[in-house]
């Protein structure tokens, strides 16, 4: 076994073309080299991420398969901190001269940025960790034969098409596997393996005589689990129901615009949580780091600890350790252990999502291990943990919440969504809307969307159901940052009630 010095001496001559995901020992060797080169070049800190991302998707429409696709991406990124400024470089060239060049590129960037840096980066203290972690799953979705996946999707499509009036159905199953290695100049060496799965369909009914069409998507949430999650979910039964509901929507009356009480199901409310709590509690947004793209936040540091964000029912917990949460890890991309902490407690805004370098930017705000990059070729920055509405010790049920609504709407599934750049004004649609009259679910409505201002909306919450009705929703593709990156994140909650919310009719006759 060569020591570091000997390895560096031969760095310019020996190609590492054999390096691949199976040869994980080589990653330590690569890390040692990168750390040594960065240190020699004057870096105060350095880290290396070597990652492989596998994606598989089977896509169908009606009675045919549109595509079977498989992708794999493998490479590494080197990050250095020199004189208080960051530099980063990434490549999928595994030859040692390419690694040396990547370190030089990162150093060159740090030096160039250092010349115009006004406040040096300060990193909170962190220990070194050596660890291996694997996300919880039973059946690796990549081991399931394609025929079986196609068979399931064909059954889904057939079930949807059984209803007269259904014209189209698209469906897919997707599997994601991430093999992520992290090493830092602190001495950390961390290996994490993550698997995620998702099944989805969209059924469309068309009434050509009226020039109208209505769609209904599946409410299955993507999840950090294996194939077992797709098998457990009743996709075929839901497709049959969705076909009927898409046709019902064509004939349903449009909602009368006005003020309604809303009963929001977890398969809908997760997205409202994501947009109106997940994003505004990001410290980088609150401080202006995302001003040019995603925006800033109305939850500015002066509101910390005193702003009544919601009613006493509103307890928002950030959790990167939540079982099966899409953003769940053991360590973030700074090599810091995952945490669980409250952002909103008894309705009061009390904390932010933060990273190692953000500790101390706002007095009293600690680092919460939210550093993440979506690829080996992407630079790390602050990304969202799983953020959920904690039902605490509520004993209420969805049925009880519904029974106390005189004039309201039950909304299921996520639909159209839009929110302003400070996360005040939002508008959300859904998949299925049921009118509630005098405590009873009555008829289907269509063209429903609610518009609200975030604090008023969450302060109008007057009941969340208990833990027994808790569900996780989420998405594979939450966008943020420049150049844009995608993050998988979950949001859990129980059926929840909101009083006096403004509902608009999005139909063409409105």
């Amino acid at each position, binding site marked *: 076994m060569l020591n570091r010095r000997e390895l560096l001496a031969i760095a310019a001559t020996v190609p590492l*073309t054999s390096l691949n995901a199976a040869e994980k020992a080589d990653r330590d060797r690569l890390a040692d080299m990168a750390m040594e080169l960065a240190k020699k070049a004057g870096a105060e800190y350095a880290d290396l991420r070597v990652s492989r991302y596998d994606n598989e998707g089977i896509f169908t429409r009606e009675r045919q*398969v549109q*595509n*079977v*696709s498989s*992708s794999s*991406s493998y*490479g590494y*990124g080197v990050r250095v901190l020199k004189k208080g*400024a*960051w530099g*980063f*470089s*990434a*490549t*999928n060239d595994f030859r040692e001269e*390419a690694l040396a060049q990547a370190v030089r590129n*990162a150093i060159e*960037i740090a*030096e*160039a*940025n250092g*010349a*115009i*840096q006004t406040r040096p980066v300060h990193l909170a203290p962190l220990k070194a960790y050596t660890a291996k972690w694997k996300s919880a799953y039973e059946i690796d979705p990549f081991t399931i*034969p394609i025929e079986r996946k*196609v068979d399931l999707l064909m059954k889904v499509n057939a079930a949807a098409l059984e209803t007269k009036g259904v*014209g*189209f159905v698209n469906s897919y199953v997707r599997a994601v596997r991430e093999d992520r290695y992290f090493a830092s100049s602190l001495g950390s060496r961390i290996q994490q393996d993550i698997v995620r799965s998702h099944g989805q369909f969209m059924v*469309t009914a*068309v009434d050509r005589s009226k*020039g109208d*069409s209505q769609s209904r998507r599946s409410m299955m949430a993507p999840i950090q689990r294996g194939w077992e999650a797709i098998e457990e979910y009743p996709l075929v039964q839901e497709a049959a129901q969705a076909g009927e509901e898409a046709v019902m929507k064509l004939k349903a009356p449009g909602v009368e615009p006005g003020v309604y009480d809303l009963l929001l199901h977890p398969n809908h409310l997760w997205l409202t949580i994501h947009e109106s709590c997940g994003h505004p509690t990001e410290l980088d947004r609150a*401080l*202006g*780091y995302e*001003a*040019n793209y995603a925006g*800033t936040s*109305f939850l500015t540091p002066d509101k910390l600890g005193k702003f009544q964000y919601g009613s006493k029912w509103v307890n928002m917990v950030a959790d990167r350790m939540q079982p099966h949460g899409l953003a769940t890890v053991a360590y973030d991309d700074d090599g810091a252990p995952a945490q669980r902490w409250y952002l909103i407690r008894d309705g009061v805004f009390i904390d932010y999502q933060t990273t190692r370098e953000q500790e101390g930017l706002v007095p009293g705000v600690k680092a919460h291990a939210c550093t993440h990059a979506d690829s080996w*070729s*992407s630079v*790390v920055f602050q990304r969202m943990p799983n953020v959920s509405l904690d039902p605490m010790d509520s004993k209420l049920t969805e049925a009880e919440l519904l029974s106390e609504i005189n004039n309201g709407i039950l909304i299921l599934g996520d639909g*159209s*969504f*839009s929110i*302003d*750049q400070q*996360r*005040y*004004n939002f*508008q959300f*649609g859904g998949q299925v809307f049921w009118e509630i009259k005098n405590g009873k679910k009555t008829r289907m409505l269509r*063209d429903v*969307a609610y*518009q609200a201002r975030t604090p008023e909306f969450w302060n109008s919450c007057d009941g969340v159901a208990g833990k027994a009705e808790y569900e996780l929703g989420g998405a594979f593709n939450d966008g943020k940052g*420049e*150049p844009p990156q995608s993050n998988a994140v979950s949001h859990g909650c129980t059926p929840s009630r909101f009083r006096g919310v403004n509902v608009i009719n*999005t139909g*063409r006759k409105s």
Partner: protein
Amino acid sequence: MTSEQARDITGKALKAATVPEVEISLSHDRHGFLRFARNAPTTSGLTLTGQANVTAWKGKRKASVAGAVDLANPKSAVDELKRLVVQAERLAAISPEDREYLPLLGPQKYLEVNAYDPETAEMTAAKRAQHVADAIRVANERKVVGAGLFEQRGSEQAIANSAGLFAYHRGSVATFSITARTPDDRGSGYTAVSSSRISGLDFKETAAMAAHKAVESRNGREIKPEDYPAILEPQAVADLIGNTMRGIVDARRADEGRSVFSGPDGKTRIGERIFDPRVTVYTDPANRTIPSRPFDGDGYPIRAADFIREGVLKNLTYSRYWAGRNKKAAGPFLNNLIMDGTDTPLSKLIENTERGVLVTRLWYIRPVDPQQALYTGLTRDGLFWIEDGKIRHPLKNFRFNESPYRLLGDVAEIGQVLPVVAGERYGDFRMMLPALRLKSFRFTSISDAV
């Protein structure tokens, strides 16, 4: 990756195929970026990436695989491509038959597009920092807080298949955007510029424009949300029309009755005068200001083509399959979008407005009802009230629910064209669009966001 290298690499990999039909696409990218916020650099990097997509057909069975490929190292690239070809063949063998199977395209002729500038593609970190420093200096001088992104990219893309098709494109692009905010967080302005050549960007001027908007937009007044006459600056037109256009010109959706361009009795609305007669929208990959790749993902040639000519819907995009089934020509596909303008400057559009709203940027635009192309979204980074031909005061932001296709039928006046990049970026889709003075624009609620 030169054209010769791409041809050599793909040729060797195609020779190794055991099925008659294989398609390989390669992309090689050198991407440098520097982000800044609070008038200082934040994240930045240089990424060198190679990517390959391989699709194999075994009979009518089709599968695609993709992987990172080290294109800087041709031998390794050929080995990796051969591995992907084998993987695609294996996957195709167990995939169901593609009912929309089409034979591969043979050799094609492409437009010559000059889209590459070495100075733009191969910039140093020091040069990037210098450009951003110029912008930050302006922000400091104007006493605003700047956040933004400067990125430059040099890329090569190639497609080759076993039927003899070979397509190659090389391009560069530099994009700079800045949001300036007043220190009290009561005003915000945004400007973005993009060019195939770095010499086409003026960092100081761009920063100064954003700073001006930020200062002028301080303390926006609240007015009732309702329908108002409005002027959309080219950036706002790009945000609304540019981004929605590409998704909605799909002919198949229109034929299936699921689009705003669906006509009665299973027909489309091609040939109808749907828009104002002054509206002409087209694509042209050889446009000198916004050159783009002259072929689509299968190597199908892209040429200049109209979508709307003098208010008449001229074309929708037919995929090769859907074209064959409907006995139409495939395309037109588009990698850029141009709308004809006039010589009328923005100042003149304002002068011609009795009362209305000046919109500088739109944001978070999402579909609400695809059937009527209804979208919701918000104004952002500078909204102003115009009365008697003059900007009178800034406004609080609005949410809107509007159909860009209704708006193009309700145009009062068309202004000058500018090259623009949509704020919510979807790839590097570039556009040249004019400012539009519209008879009415539907604002539905107030947003407190600045």
